[in-house]
């Protein structure tokens, strides 16, 4: 883990302490959690909630880990303008250590109504739910829309954020800029568990709130991904065969994450008048890497509040750039190239339709039930895990997912 942001956080905290008296310090402990279960009707692919889910689900299995989570939070308010926030989140993920468990460790400084500055570790808001997707009680569905949020595996940024609020008539505009480093946890069917550090993250976020409407525009750039041993090995093998096949150089560059810059752009809107609920987002990932290909994704959800119940429907779509080779490899190296590229050939070409129900049976608890129908094109199965033998089917696949979840806050 990058130590610099946390060091800055503690330095800032020590600097803030002299301005506080004991009487001004107040502490608040709280938490959130979910217990969920899901199953699918196919053995051809393994369902996963996102790319950090290490426990794929197959038919005749009920998975209790993918949708279960426990979060513990402490808020320590100092003086008028300073606050420490710490949050631990326990969930099923590829690597479990202090780096991946601590989701927030930040000092908030709010010198005025308009300005807030954060230093340390906090969630990066580059999609509408990217900073709240673990908090089941806050969201409509049993899980964030898979077609949109599957690639979102970075849970925090270690750095700084400056936000500014501007009153605009009866609404307000919140703009923020953040930068730092982040960790991404990935569970890859062929390459195993991996935590990658991304050194250079920059994000700009605009949110407009007016009455029952919230709209958001986000832009995010990442570069400087840490080395991935398995990718390094593949690149070394491709370097060996470059004299035989010049296309190996291009393939090697496109397998790399550290040599490619990633950009995320998204727009979202939410309308909730207490009766009708509409949530929609559209986004694009710009990338030259086959590991995380350029992708377009969108979803739209519609719900209707009836007393304590909110039935909803949702439609989502994702489509990534297709894998290609600049030129076909010669026969003597074709088998090696096939082995090296077998799993990165799977892009993301998927459509999902969901029907669900949220029941707020208690002021601090909700129960949800959701049925999903997923339709995936051949060579577009990459959001899912392959079958238990590690093989992706060479055809289009349709599958259903049933999920349920009990969410609570305390």
């Amino acid at each position: 883990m990058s130590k610099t942001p946390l060091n800055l956080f503690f330095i800032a905290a020590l600097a803030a302490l002299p301005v506080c008296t004991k009487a001004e310090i107040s502490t608040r402990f709280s938490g959130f959690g979910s217990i969920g279960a899901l199953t699918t009707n196919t053995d051809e692919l393994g369902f996963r909630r996102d790319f950090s889910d290490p426990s794929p689900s197959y038919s005749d299995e009920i998975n209790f880990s993918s949708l279960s989570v426990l979060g513990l939070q402490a808020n320590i308010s100092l003086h008028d303008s300073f606050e420490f926030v710490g949050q631990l989140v326990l969930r099923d993920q590829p690597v479990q250590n202090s780096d991946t468990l601590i989701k927030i460790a930040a000092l908030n400084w709010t010198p005025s109504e308009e300005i807030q500055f954060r230093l340390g570790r906090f969630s990066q808001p580059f999609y509408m739910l990217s900073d709240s997707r673990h908090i089941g009680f806050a969201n409509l569905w049993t899980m964030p829309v898979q077609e949109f949020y599957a690639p979102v595996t970075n849970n925090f940024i270690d750095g700084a954020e400056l936000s500014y609020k501007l009153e605009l008539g009866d609404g307000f505009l919140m703009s923020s800029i953040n930068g730092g480093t982040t960790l991404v946890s990935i569970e890859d069917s062929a390459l195993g568990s991996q935590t990658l550090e991304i050194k250079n993250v920059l994000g700009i976020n605009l949110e407009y709130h007016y009455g029952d409407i919230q709209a958001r525009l986000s832009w995010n750039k990442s570069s400087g991904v840490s080395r991935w041993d398995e990718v390094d090995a593949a690149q070394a093998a491709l370097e060996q065969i470059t004299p035989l096949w010049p296309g190996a150089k291009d393939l090697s560059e496109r397998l790399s994450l550290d040599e490619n810059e990633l950009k995320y752009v998204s727009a979202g809107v939410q309308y909730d008048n207490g009766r009708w609920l509409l949530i929609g987002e559209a986004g694009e990932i710009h990338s030259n890497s086959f590991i995380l290909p350029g992708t377009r994704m969108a979803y739209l959800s519609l719900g209707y509040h009836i007393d304590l119940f909110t039935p909803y429907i949702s439609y989502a779509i994702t489509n990534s750039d297709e894998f290609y080779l600049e030129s076909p490899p010669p026969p003597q190296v074709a088998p090696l190239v096939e082995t090296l590229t077998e799993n990165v050939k799977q892009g993301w070409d998927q459509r999902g339709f969901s029907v669900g129900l949220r029941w707020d049976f208690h002021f601090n608890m909700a129960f949800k039930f959701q049925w999903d129908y997923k339709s995936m094109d051949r060579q577009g199965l990459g959001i899912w895990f392959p079958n238990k033998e590690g093989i992706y089917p060479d055809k289009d696949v349709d599958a259903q997912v049933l999920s349920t979840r009990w969410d609570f806050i305390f």
Partner: protein
Amino acid sequence: MFKLNRYLHLSILSLILLSSGACADIYVIVSAGSEVQNLSKKQCIDIFMGRARKFDNGKKIEAFDQPKGSALREEFYTKLTGKSLAFINAYWARLFYTGRVQPPSDHLKSSEQIALEVARNPRAIAYVAEAQLSDQVQVVFTLNGNQ
């Protein structure tokens, strides 16, 4: 006989209206010594929905909620925002657990404790029923019972 019946009808109707409590006002209060005088409905929404962090005098707002499960809490938010308490709780979960904004504090166990806290704390703001009003607090907004 006719007049007695009419008075009887009016008395029964009054008793029904008074006992239902459905028309009781809710009062947003600050300390009697606070510089805050009057607030609009929008300002109250901004305060209790976390969109306003400081009063106009630059002092940090310390908002207090009625205890969890309180009927007054549900009635206040429903009338103030037009939204259900479930919506309000999910809204606050999204804001609070991203570590950016704190919701009103709900650790005080009764309206009486809340009124005492507001009376002693110049930065406090809360909402109470008529029974908790005193000369130690001032009303800055009234949520009418028929809203």
